[in-house]
């Protein structure tokens, strides 16, 4: 109804958006690597026999997964300093996303661990490997192959969560988009371009994950 699209303003600030996208990717990369480590430790605790480890791990997963990530972001950024932990914007967002993704990845990894046949662990024991050697040489490599398909979609949705860093003024993609909105008010155009950037990035991520999957596929 009378609204004509005009992308000129968006193209003028396009490098701002690209810079934001780059930061989004960096945030996601660092946070997800830490998150994966947290998730792995939690997953072993979740499938392990000892209730001393399992209970706290379950509590962690339940609480974190049921909270909106926005609340967690505000907590690390505003409440932790009052408790004496002072991190800058980027560090506190990365920490939050790592903690958040740890809970999601723990569930993904747990399912993967359960799908490694017990007999393989026993075969490892039988040739004299220690439990830790079995984890690193047998269980984790097989678990990773098992979880790749679901890992892909989890990673993508966690990547999209970097958009919430805008709330504490981390200049990632969404923040830059909103900044341009305030300047130009070409809201529709800006969001169209921004979402195209997100969709394209997610498609690339998915394609990469599929390539990894093919790469790691076992010969038949």
């Amino acid at each position, binding site marked *: 109804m009378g609204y004509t699209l005009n992308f000129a303003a968006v193209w003028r600030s396009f490098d701002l958006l690209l810079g934001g996208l780059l930061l989004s990717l960096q945030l996601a990369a660092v946070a997800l690597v830490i998150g994966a480590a947290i998730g792995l430790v939690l997953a072993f605790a979740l499938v392990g026999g000892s209730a001393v480890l399992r209970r706290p791990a379950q509590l962690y997963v339940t609480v974190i997964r049921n909270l909106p990530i926005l609340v967690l972001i505000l907590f690390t950024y505003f409440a932790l300093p009052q408790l004496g932990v002072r991190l800058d914007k980027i560090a506190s967002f990365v920490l939050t996303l790592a903690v958040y993704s740890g809970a999601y990845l723990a569930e993904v990894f747990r399912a993967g661990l359960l799908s490694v046949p017990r007999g393989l662990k026993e075969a490892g024991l039988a*040739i004299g490997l220690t439990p830790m050697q079995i984890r690193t040489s047998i269980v984790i490599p*097989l678990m990773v192959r098992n979880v790749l398909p679901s890992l892909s979609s989890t990673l993508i949705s966690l990547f999209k969560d970097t958009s919430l860093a805008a709330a504490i003024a981390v200049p990632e993609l969404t923040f830059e988009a909103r900044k341009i909105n305030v300047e130009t008010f070409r809201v529709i155009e800006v969001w169209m371009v921004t979402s195209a950037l997100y969709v394209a990035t997610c498609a690339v991520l998915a394609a990469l994950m599929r390539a990894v999957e093919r790469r790691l596929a076992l010969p038949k």
Partner: protein
Amino acid sequence: MTKPLLEIQGLRKQYGAVEVLKGVDCTMRQGEVIAIIGSSGSGKTTMLRCINMLEEFQGGRILIDGDAIGYDEIAGARRRKGEKEIARQRALTGMAFQQFNLFPHMSAAQNVMLGLVKVKKMGRDEARALAEGWLDRVGLAARADHYPGQLSGGQQQRVAIARAIAMNPRLMLFDEVTSALDPELVGEVLQVIKALAAEGMSMLLVTHEMRFAYEVASRVIFMNKGVIGEEGDPKEMFVRPQTERLVEFLKSSSFQ
């Protein structure tokens, strides 16, 4: 008489309240080949798994070369040994499973090398050479770089045996290594075991193949409801069983 290779004294094992091994005693000398037979659920697998510490056990002792497996006894109290020590003891025995349990993400050679590199701390080249040697011995020299998914069941089982033997164990444990195989593949695996027996490898093998037990074993143990029901020379036992249970068992088996 030399020190026995394996001594089992009053071995007891229970799952929850159910006692599965009710005091098993057994002594085995270096170079012996013992076949364990018995009906389903009699505790054969469990016994093998206790020797390898894949199962905890609640009573009795297992000694290999006089060395107590799995538990220390200090002032009458049993304490499980540390993980490292148990891992070392497990490497004294080699085990082949019904379900092969090859590591699917490693080639045949890598499967054999893993223990050599990680447990025996061998260099990769040395380990590779040894692995290829053993794969050759089980007739799979040409398949060293195949993955388990690319091998038939019989080939997989032979790789699994090579993997266990390569660790140079004092004693090999075989748990029904042919029962997951198609009939035409059974022969090739039994052939490998026969050759090992001929070379003087000490072996404990659980099997349902009575004819094989008869041919290859120097002694047969008949397990019955968690204890050893009868034991002796196969030539004797299969022809003149002493207990009624064994008579019955042999009747239902394919041997006769």
